[in-house]
């Protein structure tokens, strides 16, 4: 492989793999939020904010 291709491939793959691993690690290690007995609000919702 030529140097430019190798550099591009390694950079892209390390970045993508790194971000994937980082975000998935955060998913695995973030504690779940408590279930607060969620309720369905009224359906007419576009003005429900």
């Amino acid at each position, binding site marked *: *492989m030529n140097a430019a291709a190798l550099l591009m491939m390694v950079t892209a793959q390390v970045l993508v793999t790194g971000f994937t691993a980082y975000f*998935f690690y955060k998913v695995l290690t973030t504690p779940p*939020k408590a279930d607060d007995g969620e309720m369905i609000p009224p359906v007419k919702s576009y003005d*429900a904010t």
Partner: protein
Amino acid sequence: MASTSINKEQWGTRVGLILAMAGNAVGLGNFFRFPVQAVQNRGGAFILPFIVCFLLMGIPLLLIEWSSGRFGGKFGNHSTPYILDTMAKGRIWKYIGVFGIFTNIAVAAYYCYIESWTMAYVFHSVGGTFTGKTQAEVAGFFTNYVDIGHSTTGIPYEAVLFYIVCLALNTYILSRGLAGVEKAAKIGMPLLILFGVVLAIRGVTLGTTGMTPEHPDASAWDGLNFLWTPQFDSLSNPKVWLAAAGQIFFTLSVGMGTVHCYAAYVRSKDDIALNAVSAGFMNEFVEVVLGSMIVIPIAAGYLGLDWVKENAGFGMAFQTMPYLFQQWGTLFAAIAGVMWFGLLFFAGITSSLAMGTPWMGFMQDEFKWKREKSAYSFGLIVLILGLPTVLFYQQGVFDQYDYWAGTVSLVVFALLETIVFAWIFGIDKGWNEINTGADIRLPVIFKYIIKYVTPVLLLFVFVGSVFTPVGNDWQAAFANLFSGQGWALDNGSLIKQLTNSGLKEQIAAAANDPVLSATLKDKMFYINLARLLLLGLFVGLASLVYLAYKKRVREGRATE
């Protein structure tokens, strides 16, 4: 108005949700379409625009769809018609949301057919069908397989049988609800990644060991060089940008309605920002890291880069890879075949399962259908719509579904949902919705990207597909336009597709060949039939949305 107790399915675990959402995104396109698009757009020229489009269009669309879905889910809506209806005033939006069910049913109809090929090819890889076959014979096997009158195993209508088995499996898993989808993702995704890693390692270590007297220039390094050598001049080429942007739709499954539907089952206080980004990057890992290191280097390693450039296409996965695996000996060929077609099968089924959920969510929400009934009805509709793609594959029905449902609809819906989210629902409310319960802090620049950049990019993609110039050569087209020679459309442009211009030209050219002329006229008939079926599906779904609206009015649940 009194609130009612929540009564809906929920994801069992967060990892299950991420894997299901990543499985929805990771599909056959990660392994077929991405490397082929890269080759057709000058290899390394494609990568930079692709990464930019992922950041400016892919991540924003994921955030829009995850947050829209969770927002709709808070109000008991699990499909796009009434998710959009909760976000914007006016009766029209629920009909725009029909795209989010229509696309899934229509795509599932032909997607399950490709998925069934992967099942059949696992069967044939184990059975040694490809042992000792030449490259031409392996390619011919595929042609025979899709010609349903020609059985490759002695089983009559083999392609139909595998299709029905594949669809039945999908339907059964869907009938188990989110738990079934989650279980399939938890099994399928790790296996897919494992198989992909093994094949990718083989791809990058192949080097020049596949060189033969017939292919003295064969080298896997050439394939990787071609894919990865950066070509910065591509940044000024609209064709490459359009191809990169188009690939984002296919790869992330955005603009379909599946992400909304899955996200609608997320609890209202739970994170979506980290989930969306995590699932999106998992898809990119499979595509950029694994997808780029299998088909192209292995094919270039045995057949040479020139062969790859000339033959890169959808068929390589089925018509070339089994032949290349034979070079590894009978046992390893069988193992590689199981891994390759197995990973394609897992990539396919985790996506096709997602396609079933919007219809199921809609029928459960609006007409109080049970989960099993919703799943079986999905299977039946897909069977009815899908059989023409199986029976008349060579007459172009499959391609019509792929073009109108699997390409045009995605862009139209993504554009409209982005406008709804950023400009009608409002970017301030939207940004607040994205960040509610977020487990990561998103850069605020994404707020402005969602409002300004993503809609413009989507408009660019849509207009680009409507007015594609001859040969997809945008630079020449603009030069012609500014020199007063007008804008000649390509037969692949949406306008010319709609009028069947390319086929009409072929019919005119075949005037002296009655057999070819009759074949082409038959093809025209089947193409129009496919479009009628798709139109009928859309109208049928829109009618159901109307009936649901009338039901909501009667029950006092309709938005005004």
